[in-house]
């Protein structure tokens, strides 16, 4: 038993390096996608202190809208533009109808409001687009499909899906763009000011409402990109919602307020999950992917309650 736990998995890793590399790659891609969802959470949490539970459903909603437009005969790129437009309307609507009346409420109330928003969007999405899974329009959007096989040594072979490579590249581009946006532009600086202190930001003439609408829109764009990538890997359906729950341990690992944290957390969870499932999962009957991420996050939390990159929590009376 001890041999199975402590020695055998490592022997396997050494004996079949190609399989191990393949597992690492899978973990990397999954991690990138978790990180993208977590990024959407972090954006909104930083700017408004709202833990946006609806980010996961926004991913599904964006992907469904895109596919829905295309099904009704809109060309792929036009559908993309229209979806961006829809996400803008959603961001404005959420800010106007949900966030503005709830300003200054305790964070638990805001969290519950976003859970309510999740339910509304699930019902609305299924009402408009129907509940059955749909095919993502990968090729029409000009994203690569197919795969490349690399031979390693004499016996090994790893297969890389092109869409996964594209996902990694897009994630890197998005994170860089967001970094520049936050640090170099006027709006980005306003966003950071709001994140630091709402009242101070208000007093120097930054409009909170405008900033929140912008930040929800940015989160909507991140959701759209995530939705396209997840949708290309599997069908577009409300089952993707479960992915949103995966982003929560990622956030915990990285801290709620840190963009690098979201990425590092995503990668740790992605790697940990795939390696744990394939090398150790068999010992307990498999399927550990559903909870391993949470246990990893829980163990981290016990040692660092604010996450890896989070700001230190100071409590005062």
């Amino acid at each position, binding site marked *: 038993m001890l041999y199975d736990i402590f020695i055998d998995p490592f022997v396997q890793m050494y004996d079949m390096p190609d399989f191990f590399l393949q597992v690492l790659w899978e973990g990397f891609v999954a991690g990138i996608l978790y990180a993208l969802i977590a990024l959407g959470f972090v954006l909104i949490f930083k700017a408004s202190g709202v833990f946006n539970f609806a980010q996961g459903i926004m991913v599904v909603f964006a992907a469904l809208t895109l596919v829905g437009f295309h099904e009704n005969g809109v060309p792929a790129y036009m559908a993309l533009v229209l979806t961006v437009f829809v996400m803008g309307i959603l961001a404005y609507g959420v800010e106007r109808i949900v966030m503005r009346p709830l300003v200054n409420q305790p*964070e638990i109330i805001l969290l519950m409001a976003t859970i309510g928003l999740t*339910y509304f969007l699930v019902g609305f999405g*299924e009402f408009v687009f129907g509940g059955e899974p749909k095919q993502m329009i990968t090729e029409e959007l000009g994203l690569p499909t197919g795969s490349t096989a690399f031979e390693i040594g004499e016996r090994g072979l790893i297969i890389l899906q092109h869409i996964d490579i594209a996902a990694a590249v897009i994630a890197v581009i998005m994170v860089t763009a967001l970094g520049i946006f936050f640090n170099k532009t006027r709006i980005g600086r306003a966003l950071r000011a709001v994140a630091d202190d709402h009242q101070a930001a208000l007093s120097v003439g930054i409009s909170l409402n405008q900033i929140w609408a912008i930040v929800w829109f940015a989160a909507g764009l991140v959701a759209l990109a995530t939705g396209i990538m997840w949708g290309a890997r599997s069908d577009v359906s409300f089952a993707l919602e479960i992915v949103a*729950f995966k982003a929560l341990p990622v956030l915990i690992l990285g801290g709620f307020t840190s963009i690098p944290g979201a990425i590092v957390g995503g990668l740790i969870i992605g790697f940990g999950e795939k390696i744990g499932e394939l090398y150790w999962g068999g010992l307990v009957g498999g399927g550990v992917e559903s909870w391993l991420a949470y*246990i990893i996050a829980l163990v981290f939390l*016990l040692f660092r309650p604010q996450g890896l990159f989070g700001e230190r929590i100071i*409590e005062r009376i």
Partner: protein
Amino acid sequence: MFYREAGQFKTSYKADQALFPILQDRIGMAVILIIAFVVIPAFANDFFLTSIMIPFLVFALAAIGLNILTGYCGQLSLGTGAFMGVGAYAAYKLTSIFPDANVIVMVLVSGVFSAAIGAVFGLPSLRIKGLYLAVTTLAAQFFLEWCFIRIPWLYNYNASGAIEVPRREMFGFIVTGAEALPITRYFVVLCITAGIAYLMANVLRGRIGRSWMMIRDMDIAAELMGVRPLRTKLMAFAVSSYICGVAGAMMVFFWLNAAEPSSYSIRLSFQILFMVILGGLGSLGGAFMGAAFIWILPVLLKFVPGLLGIDIAAETVEHATFMIVGALIIFFLIAEPHGFARLWQIAKQKLRVWPFPY
């Protein structure tokens, strides 16, 4: 005018500290109990009992359980469904290990297992607070759900992977199993729910309940004033999980007859959480009102269009339910964050000063 405490003098501490010190409250409670114990069994048909009253009472009990943790002790939990599942599986195992034992005792004992597991998952609450804690309870939810699927011992190595309730008799009545009459089940569920609600009403206004509320309102201040956070929080987790476990066991034993792991998924956790929010955080009466609302609304939505002669597909009803519940949650959080319980308070105040506006 209709509801006024003026002139009701108490002449003993006992009368002053009664659960319902005001006459009108006592009358109201008596009417509710008479309706529940006499009127409904006398007039309701089987459909009303099995599809409305029994699930309503089960969910109300679960909502009370979550309300103790979230509403009174301030620890947000998203693992209610899994704790209910622990109760259900524990009750199932107990009845198959001790086939001759009284099934109601088994249902009540099963909550103990749920309480133990709840306390274990409550341990991180000492270091982890607020939103972070919500995620650790999600860990409980997914881990326990996985256990229900992957540990065949829990469902007695059934081929189907589901638990089925065996037939059990008590005092000559069939209490559980497919042949049990709805009226018998209704009385069992009603007695357990009412009993636990009564017990909790008393616990919550006593020392234990007050220490929970102190932790909720400000844990550091409570600690400085001599409330031990470890004991208090773990007790809240244990009591809450016990009640949820009993509710989960009742859900399969007296309502569904059979359950799969997916019956206790995260959807159930959210459903219970919504009952608590809409009913009012930190209110027992609110738990009943929230449960009634969340459970009966879809049933109404299903039948009202049919009565009006409009034909609506079943899926549309389901989607509409989702949208309405979601929108209502946001509406309530904005308009009345304390839920139905607060509306009831306002109504009482209006009755008190009637016919004057204030």
